[in-house]
């Protein structure tokens, strides 16, 4: 299954599963990124990492290593 890093900038998708380490999943969840949420790839930092995604009208910075655990399917 694809994770959000496979999205191009500006593309949106639906979150299907969180698969990072548990304590990271909890942080991600507290920021509103959970299953069935629509997530949009917004920005990649000038040095290539981290990235910024948009959820529910807020942009959130994630490192690529953390973003890998967020699995998505086409919205």
């Amino acid at each position, binding site marked *: 299954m694809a994770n959000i890093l496979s999205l191009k900038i500006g593309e949106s998708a639906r979150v299907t599963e969180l698969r990072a380490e548990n304590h990271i*999943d909890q942080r991600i969840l507290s920021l509103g990124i*959970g299953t069935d949420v629509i997530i949009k790839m917004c920005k990649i930092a*000038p040095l290539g990492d981290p990235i910024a995604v948009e959820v529910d009208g807020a942009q959130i910075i994630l490192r690529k290593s953390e973003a890998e655990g967020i699995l998505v399917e086409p919205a």
Partner: protein
Amino acid sequence: MAPKSYCVNPRPKEFWSSLHNPAAMEVAVSPAPKRTLRIALIGNPNTGKTTIFNNLTGLRQRTGNYPGVTVSRKAGTMKLGDTTAELLDLPGTYSLSAHSPDERVVIDVLNGRFEEIGKPDLILFVADATNLRRNLFLASQVATLKIPMVLILNQWDSVARSGQQIDLNLLKGRLAVPVIPTVGTKGKGTEEIKKAVIQLMEEPKLLPEIKWPESMKLAIDHLKATLPCVGEELLSESETHRLLFDTHSAEVQRLKVSPEEAEREVVKAREFIRKDGMNPLVAEAMLHYRHIDGLIGGIVLKDAQLAYGATESIDRLLLHRGWGLAAFVAMMYVVFQAVYSWAGPVMDVIEAGKIWAQNLIGPALEGTPMLKSLVLDGVIEGVGAFLIFLPQILILFAFISLLEDSGYMARAAFIMDKLFSWCGLNGKSFVPLLSSYACAIPGIMATRTIEDPKARLTTVFVAPFMSCSARLPVYILCIGAFIEPVYGPWWAGFTLFLMHFVGVVVAVPTAWFVTRFILKTRSQPFIMELPKYRAPRMRDVGYRMWQAGWEFVQKAGTIIFVITIIIWASLYFPRSEAQEIEIQATFVADKVADGAGSEEAILAQLENEDSDLAREFGLTLAGAQINQSYMGRIGKAVQPIFEPAGFDWRISISVLASYPAREVIISTLGIIYSLGGDVDEEDGHLRAALKNSRWQEGERAGTPIYTVPVVIGLMVFFALCSQCGATTSIIIKEAGIKWAVASFLYMTILAWIGAVFCYQVGTYLF
């Protein structure tokens, strides 16, 4: 049955004062003992919480630390009609989860676990109105504490701009608590908040609490029954949630049982949830969000396309691969220049003020030399040398406030994170470390902008390695006297450039080591919001500067004062008249031997204070007294320790005397070489004295002390050593005494190793 409005039974006013004194309710005849109302301000980061706090308290605010942790505590007094309330500004957070005691502060305060703070009577919850759903997640967790709440919807003016509509009346009806729309930066809504607080005191109202499914209730009850806290009290409902839902919860440290036993019970409790078909680690968030969706369903209409409108256009430039990096470098250059050079004129004024005070007070204390020395050389000199950092602190905090309030700080962290993440720091470490190149004191204070407590501690630990401006005089003296004359200006400049990197080369592996082996951090996520750009408000910038400056003067000042007196005493004592007479006798005998005249003629010249000979004697006396002082004796005693670095006893004393402030080495060398304490790093006499200085005895007798390897070693020693009392006192304040001691020892040992390495390898090669 509770009434449908979730309203708790209205209580008379005495209810509030009797909350912590059950007996007061029964003796209603005599007035109940009055206690100030305690209010906690809580919310996500970037909601404008601090602005609301400033609006409510004005300048009536104080800062400090929570006991036992490194989180700074901010409180203020708020006027409520004819009474006042205590307002506590809790650190911004997205959730009550806590993996460390630092993160536990919010839930600890809400549960009344800090004895001197007490459980809050009321909560002001600040939410970003443009992002209600996410903000209410924390509110929903807080609601389980059953503390009356006012919900503040800040940045209300941005709601329409971000393409949203919120049905306020419907929301007020569903949430049951007072809902106040505000625009903090324009001061709108401040009075309404106060009115709501007064109303809530009359008639406490709670936010509707989440309804747990049966399996959750069983799990929670299981933990409550099996895991007592230290001191026999029970875990509260919210604390039990943390144990149940969080991996590696910091609540474990509060329990009476061992972590292993707690873990066994938590696993058992989670089984109830698992059997119900849910993943216990994500169930909490899922259920809270479901609860919130039920509360705000149909209330918020949004067009997400508009959300980041203007911000997107600015970010296209400021986060661009080329332009974005250039803008970042330019902005940081301005910050650095401001701290490094703009502070200069103000620092000169403080320096002049110090000399003015010494000249003013000096004559009045002429009759009591010891008191004069204590006041002039100890108190005024020491406190002045410390106050001189104030301009740098104020300037840096003005910039930090501008960067944070505008939303650029998050972008700076976004840009820099990749360079820092591998050694356990994160993008937010950049500004504090850059500032430390000017001065570690404002740099360490700036680490408060780092939310992750472990990354913050690591940054505090490595910040003093950055080559601060006080190291410059040492480099200039050494390079000017020994590198430039031999190797020319190009090498001199290059050496100076390299010296600025010695600290970083050591700091990076240190950060990695501290994170990996001391703090034993699992991979710390770097997850934060990228806020929308906003115009900063000058009033908030002013508060921030005032707060940082006042705190520096007040708290660190007491520590530096003590250090100053100790160092002064060790340089002054022991001192006696007999000793002075003996030094004078030796001086006169030497002069007679040199053929400068008869004993009587020399003594007569010494009587005249303005004669050259009297001045020369004054310098000789100061040099001799420092040799015989406790510090001088210690210097000579520890010289064997510095022997492998090629330092003689003079360098050893200078190095020791420089522990309160490293730039002191120049004046100490001046005193030791009997040139007086007023020399500077460009002084030709001091350079000549160092060059002519030779070993007096031993196998190296007659050879120069200051060879190139010794000089390089000395510079490396100063680059790495913890020679700044003010920095040490700031570390004590920000991270605690343990970290300050560790930092001091680590830097000193490393400095010694560096100096020995340079001397030994250098001497072998040349």
